[in-house]
């Protein structure tokens, strides 16, 4: 019998404690609120007060971006990708390190490396990307990176990163190269065609 009453007492007291906690939270909503009003406020924001600014980020995972002028076509990123979402096609340039204006090709990267290859296709399928960041480490020219965060000076963050069509998420970084003009620099291919 005493267990019966102590049960009732326990129930009432613990339920009241719980109600007290929710009441306290309701009353302190102005202080405790954690909601971010998304279209107006965007993370990261110093207001969230975890002690970090966007500059303090070590690294960021977001959309991959390639500075194609710096790309030497070494394919290290393609090999590093665990899901094979990077597709690169290169052709050998006849003239190493020379600008080829008719196909919009720069001969020397910003680091001073002379390019021996023309990158005619550089597609990243962001629907397949697993954001593991493994492709960015081996790049010798640091031309593939994820936008925003510490890389914001190279490319601002693509915050929404949304498209209406799935195909629009396949990012094509290579210069739009005319096949005919390209074939000039790759004589053997022309021969086999003929």
């Amino acid at each position, binding site marked *: 019998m005493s267990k019966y009453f102590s*049960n009732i007492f*326990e*129930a009432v007291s*613990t*339920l009241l*404690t*719980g109600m007290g*906690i*929710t009441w306290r*939270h309701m009353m302190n909503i102005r202080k405790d609120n*954690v909601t971010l009003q998304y279209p107006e406020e965007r993370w990261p924001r110093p207001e*969230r007060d*975890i*002690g*970090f600014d966007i500059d*303090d*980020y*070590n*690294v*960021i*995972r*977001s959309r991959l971006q390639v500075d194609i002028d710096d790309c030497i076509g070494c394919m290290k990123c393609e090999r*590093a*990708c*665990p*899901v094979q979402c990077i597709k690169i096609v290169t052709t050998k340039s006849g003239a190493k390190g020379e600008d080829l204006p008719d196909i919009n090709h720069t001969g020397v990267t910003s680091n001073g490396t002379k390019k021996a290859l023309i990158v005619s296709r550089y597609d990243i399928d962001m629907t397949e990307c*697993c*954001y*593991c*960041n*493994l492709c960015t480490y081996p790049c010798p020219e640091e031309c593939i990176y*994820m936008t925003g*965060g510490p890389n914001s000076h190279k490319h601002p963050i693509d915050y929404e990163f949304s498209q209406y069509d799935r195909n629009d998420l396949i990012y094509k970084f290579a210069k739009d190269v005319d096949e005919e003009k390209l074939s000039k620099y790759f004589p053997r291919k022309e021969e086999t065609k003929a």
Partner: protein
Amino acid sequence: MGVVHGDLMTLNIGPQHPSTHGVLRLKVKTDGEIISEVEPIIGYLHRCFEKHCENVSYEQVIPYTDRCDYIAAMNNNFGYAVTVEELMEIKVPERVEYIRVIVAELNRIASHLLALGAYGLDVGAFTPFLYMFRDRERILDLFETLCGARLLYNYIWVGGVSHDLPPGFIDAVYSFLDYFEPKIEEYNELLTYNKIFIERTGDVGVMPPEVAVSYGVTGPNLRGSGVKWDIRKNEPYSIYDKFDFDIPVGAGKMGTVGDCWDRYYVRMVEMKESVKITRQALKGIPTGDVHQALPKKIRPPQGSIYKRTESPRGDLAYYIVSDGSPIPYRLKMRSPAFTALSVLGEISQGWMMSDVLVILGSLDIVLGEIDR
């Protein structure tokens, strides 16, 4: 009046159901509200993890391990890295070990927060779930500044970690721990000691220690049954032997040893222990280069290894067979959630319809890890 013999009704819980924690299907035979048979049917999330791993190099496996137990990806990375390091006999720098312990314990807290919050939701309490997600979010924020990712980190690498701690990270973790510790008390008051919650979980779904051991259940589920077994203590890996922490075990405080409440409470106490470990690691962290021991090329010698680590769900083990090439010959993952799910049919017999979901929630399964 004789006993009425009715037919049993077969009911499919899932694959789309609010309380199956992913895409799990439970084939349940019920007699009214009483359950007579539960058969979990898995495989809806199968992604050929092990076969994938036989085709990618050792460092490319790490993003795949993230996606197994996506709630505690750091711990998965950790287990894999430790296994390969032992196979290659790499000695990682002290700082790396400390960083690994810090992130693994923070991730353990995050994982338990999700488990407990979702458990509250299973029982019908909505608000604790949101409180716990709010705090989990802060841990994810910390991880985001650390490695850019919020959920699937690819942070712990073989022989090191991908990045050193950002400036101010240690202070941020300290301030998080200071913020978080009182919150545990609040959760206890709001949910753990709530009489309705105790009624729903105490004495329900009792898993005796013998059953737990014979089914191979590990982690908080095993400790909830009163068995003091924790890989971090019993078979220390990394630098867990340097830290002082307790292993909470279920004591049947609100019912029988091994009931749902015990499993729940073990997780609650484990969060406190994780806070303790994190504090010690933060205090002792040395300086150094985190990339120092990264191997140029991961090409382990021929041989095989089986190494277990303690993930938030229990005994997470990797079995790796190497043929000397840069690609694993065979990689097997021992999933703690898989064994935990296997015991469901045994312990939920004779309970009511609502209890099955409560018992399932208390086992804290992650379908990504079960189906792999």
